[in-house]
């Protein structure tokens, strides 16, 4: 293990990158805080486009709809992971791979059609009583 110092030297660029990132973002935040105006109105202190309206404390209940959308997001998000290996070997699989992927996408789309028609994606409709 006499290559140990050399090995640690590999981390140097990462360290520099980390320093730059921290310096830049920290610097910009500090500058805007130093130079900017501070008018603390209610509206300004509200969370910016983060879903839940911050009324009351965080222990509040929020709509089950959030879970539903989150679940569906996870599923459709993760389905795309199969596109990466497919794209890598696309050339050697030729048309066979292309049609197989079309079938796969068709099945995913069928699922999408189902949730769309069941109204999961309509944010404004009131939740149906079960």
């Amino acid at each position: 293990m006499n290559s140990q110092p050399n090995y640690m030297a590999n981390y140097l660029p990462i360290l520099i990158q980390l320093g730059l990132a921290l310096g830049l973002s920290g610097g910009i935040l500090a500058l805007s805080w130093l130079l900017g105006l501070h008018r603390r109105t209610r509206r300004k202190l509200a969370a910016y486009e983060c879903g839940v309206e911050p009324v009351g404390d965080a222990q509040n209940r929020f709509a089950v709809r959030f879970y539903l959308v989150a679940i569906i997001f996870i599923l459709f998000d993760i389905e795309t992971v199969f596109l990466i290996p497919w794209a890598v070997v696309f050339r050697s699989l030729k048309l066979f791979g292309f049609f197989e992927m079309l079938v796969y996408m068709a099945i995913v789309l069928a699922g999408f059609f189902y949730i769309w028609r069941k109204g999961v994606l309509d944010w404004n409709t009131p939740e149906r009583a079960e």
Partner: protein
Amino acid sequence: MHVPADYYLRILPELVLTATAVLIMLIEGGARLGSRAALSGTVALIGTAAALASVAVQSAHRGEAFSGMFRVDGFSLFFHGLIIAATLIVLLLSIGYLRAQRLQRGEFYALLLFATVGMCLMAGSVELIMVFIGLEISSICSYALCGFWRASARSSEAALKYLLLGSFATAFFLYGIALTYGASGSTNLYVIARSLSDVLAGHGSLILVAAALMFVGLAFKVSAAPFQVWTPDVYEGAPVAVTAFMSAGPKAATFAVFLRIFYVALGRYSHTWFWMIWVAAILSMCLGNLGALRQTNMKRMLAYSSIAHAGYVLVAFAALGEHGISAAMFYLACYVAMNLGAFAVISNLAQQNERFIDLHDYAGLGFRFPLQSVCLTICMLSLIGIPLTGGFLGKLFIFKAAFQNHLVGLAIVGLLNSALAAYYYLRVIAFLYMRPATVEVSQPQRSLSMNVAMVACAVGVLWLGIAPNSLLNFVVHSAGALTGR
């Protein structure tokens, strides 16, 4: 890349089932608020019947498919047929059951078919990752089906317990796969077998750990002791149609995987994993039957009984060799028929909100509902193992195989357990015919499909007990295919 058309014919049942299930999802999506359960149910029945027919097409095209991931031989054909037939029966009984429970939603059928696809993949694949995916497809659908009765706290509790313990067990199974992959450099069962016979003793301990981990995951799925704790609660809480489904198909499919992994890939290590199976067999039989003695809830009683029956199959498993494999396969066919028959009757008598599910509700029903009672009686007699029923022959072959392989102790424990089990099965028959009615059980709704399911199971049980020759020949041949001799 050239893909012969044969490859698709070899997975034709899976393709048909998947297409049907996707079609049902589209039909249900078409109905925005309500449901088109009647249409979906019919489509599901047609699709499953077509899948059963396509097993015949499959059998004309034996061989491997998709770079050796999937294999059509006698063993996988047998389990394809058994699993799809079980799903057909479950579909027939759930059409009537869902109507009685006012749970008519077509998604039920789609989930059922997707689960069946997963089980068929388990039965046919010879690749561990593929097995894992099949197992998960069927398990995830089963979790959702358990909680299908959303208004019932018991149903969602059953779903939660099954989900948590099921994923826990799956993680063990997956770890076993990872270690096998590490030790052998492959996940194909036949390649693993070859590379393990080359490797010297160095990897022996790693393979043993892998075998133990896979054993934990699979024993959980077939509810073999000591991994059976979830079974009574889940079987009790799930809707009866789902309980019927879980007790039949997934068990058969998991045993298919169990036999294939341990005999094909780890066959060389049989002297070491043999003891795990032996202990699990004894524990399952004893714990299952002792637990069932105390139950009066029919679902819970059959849950314990299914643990005991997993134990009998494990006895056949422990009797290494072709006799053991063929006995296990034949017994699984009998078990599926008799268990589904019993659950078909229970789901018919249960009625709305599953009001009549206790043994005491069955008192004096024998002459009021003759069809149901006769079918239930035949299934109970078969579960005991009375001659002229499939259960008798199944047990006979199992214990014969055990004696032939000098497992005298195991066989004696099994026989004693069979005698013990007779008590709680006979009690059901005694309640039906010899007790005066104490509870006013209303007339169950007339449902042609449910009656067909009950009668088909009862006839199947008798057929397996009286004229099993053709099936036996097939089973013996396909067991040979598994051991490669």
